């Protein structure tokens, strides 16, 4: 009973906290631009509104049109359950859960692209193609980052992997993972979440035909993914294990907030890159993570 209750509380925390991050990012952007900006809780209102709406279904679409977002959301929710929250630990931990997390993230992406192609719209096919082709490099970088953490700590369990002592590669890893975070969540140098010009959108182009609850689920899943990457980045870089539990919790919260604010500033000060420049940036992220892996492998001396 207690275990089940703890489980529910944990997942409720994740699910409730996630839509806050895009709100904070938008607030930062508005502040830099000197606007008033939407309220921090805007995404909660949007989700509530979308949830009450009807679904418009294309006559061409198969049940996958609705199943895709649903399965993707469940996969993301499963992935966040595996991520430890610093000293609070995790609800579910076993040897090799890092692999499961990576595959759940991949499954979520597959489901979004699958649902995007259901209606046969050319724009959504284009968005899906772009999303997947960026993911080829972004996932390589993520896998390299995970490998470097794994080599550094000699473990494939997320709980022990994400409590490293700050190694020499921490800076490399931070830069690499931050770039991956921006790419995976379709943030500014890669994609503009506010744009509504179909030819240049990536993530937004994939969800053009979704409406009502499926769209709400997709939006919530995206915010969940952002929170997951922010937590992952903070825990991979900060030496949480060395701090007292109380301080570590504070450091985690502060770290996630810092990452979010950084994303906001990046969005305010950078323009999105031209498409042909994007592979270069992603290759840089891969190289940063690979160098972090080499540093972890060969020890601090190299």
């Amino acid at each position, binding site marked *: 009973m207690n275990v089940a209750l703890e489980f529910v509380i944990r997942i409720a925390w994740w699910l409730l906290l996630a839509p806050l991050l895009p709100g904070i990012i938008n607030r930062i952007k508005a502040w830099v631009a000197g606007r008033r900006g939407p309220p921090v809780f805007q995404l909660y209102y949007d989700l509530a509104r979308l949830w009450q709406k009807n679904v418009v279904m294309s006559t061409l679409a198969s049940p996958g049109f609705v199943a895709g977002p649903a399965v993707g959301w469940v996969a993301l929710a499963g992935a966040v359950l595996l991520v430890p929250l610093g000293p609070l630990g995790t609800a579910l931990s076993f040897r090799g859960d890092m692999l499961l997390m990576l595959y759940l993230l991949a499954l979520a992406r597959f489901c979004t692209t699958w649902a995007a192609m259901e209606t046969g719209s050319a724009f959504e096919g284009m968005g899906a193609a772009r999303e997947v082709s960026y993911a080829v490099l972004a996932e390589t970088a993520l896998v390299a980052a995970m490998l470097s953490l794994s080599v550094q700590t000699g473990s494939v369990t997320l709980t022990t992997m994400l409590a490293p002592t700050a190694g020499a590669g921490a800076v490399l890893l931070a830069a690499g993972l931050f770039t991956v975070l921006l790419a995976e969540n379709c943030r500014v140098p890669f994609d503009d979440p506010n744009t509504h010009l179909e030819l240049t959108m990536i993530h937004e182009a994939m969800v053009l035909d979704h409406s009502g609850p499926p769209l709400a689920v997709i939006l919530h899943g995206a915010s969940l993914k952002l929170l997951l990457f922010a937590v992952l980045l903070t825990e991979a870089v900060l030496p949480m294990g060395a701090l007292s539990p109380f301080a570590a919790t504070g450091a985690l919260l502060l770290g996630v907030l810092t990452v979010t604010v950084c994303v906001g500033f990046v969005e305010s000060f950078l323009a999105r890159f031209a498409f042909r*420049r994007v592979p*270069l940036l992603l*290759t840089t992220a891969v*190289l940063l993570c690979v*160098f972090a892996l080499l540093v972890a492998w060969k020890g601090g001396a190299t």
Partner: protein
Amino acid sequence: MTANLNLLIGLAMGLNLLALGSNRLPSLIRTMSLQGVVLGVMPLLMEEFNWRVGLIAVATMAGKGLIIPTLLRRAMRAANIERELDPFIGFVPSLLLGAAGTIGAVALARALPLLPEHAGSLLVPGALASVLTGFILLIGRAKAIAQVCGYLILENGIYLFGLLLIHSTPLLVEAGVLLDLTVGVFVIGIIVDRIQRAFDSLDTRKLTVLRE
């Protein structure tokens, strides 16, 4: 001490990769001059402070961080060329080549029979990596000014090698190298202007045919 030095050399190696990835002339020049400044700080960390080391450091920083970039920027403005670099070797391939070269340099330096006091430092791999980066830029970029930047990064690598001998190199040699370099870039600045006037372009691909 060695840790600080290694951090700086690591930074210089990172700047190498940044130079390979930058697609505009001003950012390439900025990266190169920043690397020059980073290299200029190094003698201060390696030696007890005395007037000779201080002079080398200040001269290097001023020469590589200020004078040479200013000359290059002036040449760029005078020639009035477009700032986009058009590469023979694309940015992603050259970045990958540079990264492979860096890893190879580290691996090679481990196999070399170095003096015990140099074994733990990144001086030799950093020097090799910078030389390789310079070569890639020299081969892979079409604009004359970008090739000059490649040449200067190559020279930075040679300077890193020279730091191994900092105890035994006379000041005069260091000063002479720096002076040569500055004069060289000065001359190149003038040549670039001439090329621009004669051919209306700085693309070195157009300089391969002899004409009356």
